[in-house]
């Protein structure tokens, strides 16, 4: 069954048409005030294929997927599921049609266990409405076993890593018997190893006869796993192509309308004296030493790339630098100021800017306007406020500048931030932090969720900021990004910097060895 499906899709759309496609969109249009998010979309997803959806930030990918899952309704057009026209007016209806979706921003109940999250809404009944938790845990355990690395059904979702959370999301769909799976940017939050694992899982799902639609920005990833690719631009379908017949250049050109290429950005790096100094910082959390006497310094006019597998202390280091946690021992200096115990505001005033890894938790307030979000954190500075009163005009002007300067696609500056697509929210945060004229910029996964064009643009901005004297601490699980930008690379492992090399001398394989702890540890960090 599996191989058959592969063959069918391998031969392209005309072959696939013989069986009713799993999903067919005909002339689907969705408008928001001021934007046509989806414009006459025709899309055909064959049964049993992995179908990728690509396009720039704001092209309308998430909107289209939300319509398939009943979270949004089309204004025009119709959707056919397995050949039958359907009105998908709620997720409940989508679940009935065996369609499942993993959202760009996860939808998990943090306080619930893995098992509770998975069975919610379709719980096993012990009789009389009693929740059969043992049965739930047993079934979840069973599902998880046939699907990659083990997952503890009793663990609370808030205590597990992102990669695992994503598997919980996928298991949620499988538990409900979904056979059309929609994954909105599943790879954005994963480290490379986890991406590999996800792709293995996707291939396995396909072998089990499932249909998968997924969105991704990395074209290498898309080409690696997809059977067919549909390109969206400005809400319209540009084309659907077989992955075997295309390459990254061609797809990128279709996405953007002109050739683009992600490449190392060259600048003139002449690192100066130390700007950020971290000395022997220790932080314990949950009885475990998450930062174990970490030393680090970032110089003026330098991009310091911090590489590492997620969960080795990066998050805690950032929190200690930004002022969200106070380390038990050690010191933090910015320029000449000691900031070890300073609060966030003092640090920001001292010249620190921070691009957080989770824009929803830390970067912005979704319910607030685009304009308000553009000055969040600097609102008490001139010209945005004077004597405690906000200057709304100045704030709006800044928002307009950011939107222009960072090519944020926004309906208007008075739209709520949630009306922006995921990538455009990210761009707004980036613009705001760059604009605060920092001495030190802490950038945690700055290009997460950005399209190639925007990624290239942000890289350029980071390099320009460096050339102007800013010290940049770049934290990224994407080694390509680190290698493309960093003047110096440090590897964090188990709460310590275990290796330091010059950016130009670093190689993927070497860093990989340090990241997984296969090498390094106690020898003196070089460079």
């Amino acid at each position: 069954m599996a191989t058959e499906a592969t063959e069918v899709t391998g031969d392209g759309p005309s072959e696939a048409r013989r069986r009713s496609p799993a999903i067919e969109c005909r002339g689907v249009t969705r408008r928001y005030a001021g934007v046509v998010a989806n414009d006459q979309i025709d899309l055909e997803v064959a049964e049993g294929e992995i179908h990728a959806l690509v396009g720039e930030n704001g092209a309308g990918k998430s909107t289209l997927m939300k319509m398939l899952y009943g979270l949004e309704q089309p204004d025009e057009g119709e959707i056919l599921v397995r050949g039958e026209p359907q009105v998908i007016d709620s997720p409940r209806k989508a679940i009935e049609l065996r369609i499942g979706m993993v959202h760009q921003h996860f939808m998990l109940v943090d306080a619930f266990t893995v098992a509770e999250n998975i069975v919610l809404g379709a719980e096993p009944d012990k009789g009389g409405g009693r929740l059969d938790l043992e049965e739930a845990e047993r079934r979840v355990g069973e599902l998880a076993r046939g699907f990659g690395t083990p997952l503890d059904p009793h663990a609370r979702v808030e205590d597990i890593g992102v990669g695992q959370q994503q598997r919980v999301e996928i298991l949620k769909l499988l538990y409900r018997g979904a056979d059309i799976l929609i994954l909105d940017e599943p790879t954005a939050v994963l480290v490379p190893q986890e991406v590999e694992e996800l792709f293995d899982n996707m291939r396995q799902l396909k072998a089990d006869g499932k249909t998968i639609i997924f969105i991704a920005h990395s074209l290498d990833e898309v080409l690696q796993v997809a059977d067919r690719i549909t390109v969206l631009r400005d809400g319209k379908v540009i084309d659907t192509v077989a992955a075997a017949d295309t390459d990254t250049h061609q797809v990128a050109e279709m996405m953007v309308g002109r050739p683009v290429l992600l490449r190392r950005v060259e600048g003139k790096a002449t690192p100066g004296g130390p700007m950020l100094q971290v000395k022997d910082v220790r932080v314990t959390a949950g009885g475990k030493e998450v930062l174990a006497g970490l030393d680090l310094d970032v110089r003026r006019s330098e991009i310091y790339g911090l590489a590492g597998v997620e969960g080795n202390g990066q998050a805690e280091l950032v929190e200690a630098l930004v002022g969200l946690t106070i380390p038990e021992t050690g010191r933090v200096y910015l320029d000449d100021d000691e900031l070890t115990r300073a609060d966030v505001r003092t640090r920001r005033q001292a010249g620190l800017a921070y691009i957080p890894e989770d824009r929803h938790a830390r970067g912005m307030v979704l319910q607030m306007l685009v304009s308000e979000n553009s000055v969040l954190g600097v609102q008490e500075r001139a010209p945005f406020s004077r004597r405690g009163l906000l200057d709304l005009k100045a704030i709006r002007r800044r928002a307009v500048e950011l939107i222009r300067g960072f090519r944020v696609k926004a309906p208007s500056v008075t739209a709520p931030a949630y009306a922006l697509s995921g990538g455009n929210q990210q761009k707004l945060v980036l613009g705001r932090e760059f604009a605060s004229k920092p001495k030190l910029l802490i950038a945690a996964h700055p290009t997460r969720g950005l399209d190639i064009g925007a990624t290239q643009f942000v890289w350029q901005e980071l390099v320009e900021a460096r050339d102007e004297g800013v010290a940049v601490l770049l934290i990224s699980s994407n080694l390509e990004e680190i290698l493309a930008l960093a003047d110096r690379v440090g590897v964090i492992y188990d709460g310590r910097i275990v290796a330091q090399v010059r950016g130009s001398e670093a190689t993927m394989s070497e860093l990989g060895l340090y990241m997984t702890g296969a090498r390094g540890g106690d020898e003196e960090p070089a460079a």
Partner: protein
Amino acid sequence: MPEILVQLFGLATIASAIRAFVPLYLATLGGVFNERSGIVNIGIDGMMIFGTWFGAWGALQWGPVAGLLTAVAAGVAVAAIHGMATITFRVDHIVSGVAINILAIGMPRFLSIVAYGQGTQSPQVPSLPKIDLPGLGEQSIMVPVTVLLGFGAWFVLTRTIFGLRLRSAGENPRAAESLGVRVRGQRWAGVLISGGFAGLAGGYLSIELVGLYREGMNQGRGFIALAALILGNWSPIGAAFACLLFAWTEALTVFLRVDWINNAFIQSLPYIVTLVVLALFFRRVRPPKAVGQAYEAGSPV
């Protein structure tokens, strides 16, 4: 035994604390349901007041059991207003709750004038037969009933499908909705159950504890219940301990007499203890994540 210990922990004090425990705990249980479903209900106090009035009135007409049921019905009816405001029309939960508390100041007086010809008090009403608890004297049959309801609430919240869905609506309504849980329905259930408990708590006060309705008899117990809810970390079990503490301090206002402590201070003990305890524990508890947030199906935030 030294006098002070008798005052603090004597059987009379404990017996009185148990009497005070019942309405507080019932109201807190109600609060657990509405908050876990995502709705803030500071109107609990008002709902209790309606319970006291309608409880007494029902007991006068049809006897104590029917009185308690009338109180429950009154609480549910007032809760329906809160549900309509917060769930259907997405009014701010606090605003709606305050409105209900204000309503509870004026309405009962008006009702009393209509029913009893005077505004502040009802005639004596019949109570349920008392039971004799060893060492603790005569207690209302509502004491064991309350304990059972506490267990019941705990069971429903943690061991049933309904409970899981209700909690999901209070923690992450968008996630719940995306799995086909009817968030609004869950929140309605939470609010109505809350009203029922608050009404019952009020009914106990007028029918069982005092034997008549008197204006102001609730003495802000609904607000102490809100504090107990927080201190009890939104769990029926935790709330039991919190309510025992508050009920005990309430009993002390009657039994504690110390020369060198001003009696006015002792009278305000329940409120002072509430404040202090909340200030000390507020950071250690964990409220439902989405409590107080309006929710609209398919909304982007």
